[in-house]
């Protein structure tokens, strides 16, 4: 099994531990990740989708053509990138007129969208192609954690097109999290947005933080040890955003945040510093201690957040 590995922006340019964890984990699972050389921003759905849908689809289509040249399906572990690439792929495959229009633009850059590959989300590949049973076998360090699972928005929605799981009552991530030994704790409005998407974080941080605080309040009420997400932008929002919420509201939230790849890294025995969790804005030591992981003293903070 091989995938064209789409990096995006926030993961590789802010939280490289997610990328590192993914590369090691996939090797461990005998899945080859091929670099999509010269790929760009997906582009960001909030800004590009809102400003000009044609530009959005054209830049996205260019990224997809790189995978087409490699003859491999795209794998991304960012909900925003997944939304942009999946929707563009879907649109251009369904709508011949749109495809022609975009290909006219791509021709200027010497590229052509053919519609030959699929766009897949990392979590969905783990669930459907690897399977919970095989994943459980690979867990060497079962994690004693109570986890607030955060699905984010563009992993399952719009469900009519994406069709991975029931968007209103999903279980896919909870099952994936529990395969590591952690426990997925139900909490109020679990499927609510983190508040960062749609260009909202850069346009009006106060509104975004109001979303995030509501999520953090509900997670705290449920008594969780950590937040697990499948999107570097949600990840950034819960990590950096959590410190911003504390500053704005005078609160004292300190819930460690892990991308699913980092959680699997911990459960497969990777060192915390290889996952760059020490560079998170919100200290993760409480979660690591609960998992009886060593090396905590060796971690020193490096600024990593946006």
């Amino acid at each position, binding site marked *: 099994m091989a995938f064209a590995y789409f*990096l995006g*922006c926030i993961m590789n*340019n802010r939280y490289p531990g997610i990328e590192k964890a993914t590369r090691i984990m996939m090797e461990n699972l005998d899945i080859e990740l091929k670099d999509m050389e010269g790929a760009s921003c997906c582009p960001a759905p909030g800004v590009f989708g*809102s400003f000009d*849908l044609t530009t959005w689809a054209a830049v996205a289509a260019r990224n997809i053509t790189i995978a087409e040249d490699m003859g491999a399906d795209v794998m991304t572990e960012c909900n925003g990138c997944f939304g942009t690439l999946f929707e563009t792929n879907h649109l251009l495959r369904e709508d011949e007129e749109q495809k022609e229009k975009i290909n006219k633009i791509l021709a200027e850059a010497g590229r052509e969208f053919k519609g030959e590959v699929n766009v897949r989300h990392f979590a969905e590949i783990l669930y459907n192609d690897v399977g919970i049973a095989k994943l459980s076998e690979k867990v060497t360090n079962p994690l004693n954690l109570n986890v607030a699972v955060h699905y984010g928005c563009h992993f399952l929605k719009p469900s009519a097109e994406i069709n991975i799981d029931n968007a209103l009552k999903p279980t896919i991530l909870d099952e994936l999290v529990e395969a590591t030994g952690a426990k997925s704790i139900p909490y109020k409005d679990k499927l609510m947005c983190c508040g960062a998407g749609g260009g909202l974080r*850069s346009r009006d941080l106060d509104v975004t933080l109001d*979303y995030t605080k509501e999520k953090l309040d509900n997670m705290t009420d449920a008594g969780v040890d950590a937040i697990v997400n499948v999107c570097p932008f949600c990840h950034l929002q819960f990590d950096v955003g959590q410190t911003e919420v504390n500053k704005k509201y005078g609160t004292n939230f300190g819930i460690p945040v892990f991308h699913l790849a980092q959680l699997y890294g911990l459960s497969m025995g990777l060192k915390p510093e290889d996952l760059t969790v020490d560079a998170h804005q919100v200290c993760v030591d409480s979660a690591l201690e609960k998992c009886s992981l060593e090396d905590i003293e060796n971690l020193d903070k490096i600024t*990593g957040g946006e």
Partner: protein
Amino acid sequence: MKQLKRLKNMLLGEEKQKETDEQVQQSESEIETKSKETVTPKSEIENRETDPKQEQNESKEAEQGLEPASPKLIKEEPKEAEEKVLKVPKKVEEKPKTTRSDSMTLLEGRDAETITRAEIDVNFKQAVIDAGAETLSLCFQCGTCTGACPSGRRTPYRVRTVIRRALMGFKDDLISDDSLWMCSTCYECQERCPRGIKIVDIVKIARNYAAQAGYMAKAHKMTGSYVIKTGHGVPINDATKALRKRVGLNELPPTTHEFPEALEEVRTILKATKFDNLIGYNWETGELE
């Protein structure tokens, strides 16, 4: 909302009532006589707007030598005329408050809130549909979308009115509305829409029109400019380079960051779609205009 606004106006009007009582007595007779004139305030404003031009023409004539002795006075005249013009709409707005006690208060300000045909863009609905939202006309205004909206719980954003305004052709009202940008595109509305309307697509199409009309946040344009400059909306920084190196990854990811020729492809596309013009990107300075 409109009723709330009216109530608010009423309440504010009452508070101001005492303060302005004296003024009212002074100006009531004036307003009564003026009210006939202000039945069609627009035309009156237009008429008045022509005044300064005429006066300017006059002043030009004056400058040309008819009255060379007092150029300062002549230059000030148009300014005074402009001030008069600016005051006119204010008086029109104040009218309902001052005559409040004599009329049905709930009807106050109704003229200002009445939608006229002039505000409707008859082609807008079809334009939104043609841009990819065929489902737009299925909306029957049930409000399920707004009920599901996490933004609507904390901002003035009301998804239902976005759809309604798109359907009715209230283009300017919709695209100039700041709350259009309070949507985090979470799809909760779309998942629950009993008519299967692609609501988020409609929001984005409306935002595309807003962007074309210049309603763009600086921060969003900056993200766009980063993609033009580096290929990434969030480009790499030194701290992350150090982190990448520490965990054994290449300092630069194998993206446009590492491949300049790939960045040129992206730039070619952004020029072809005129995205650079849209956000006002200056290729020479690398800044936004």
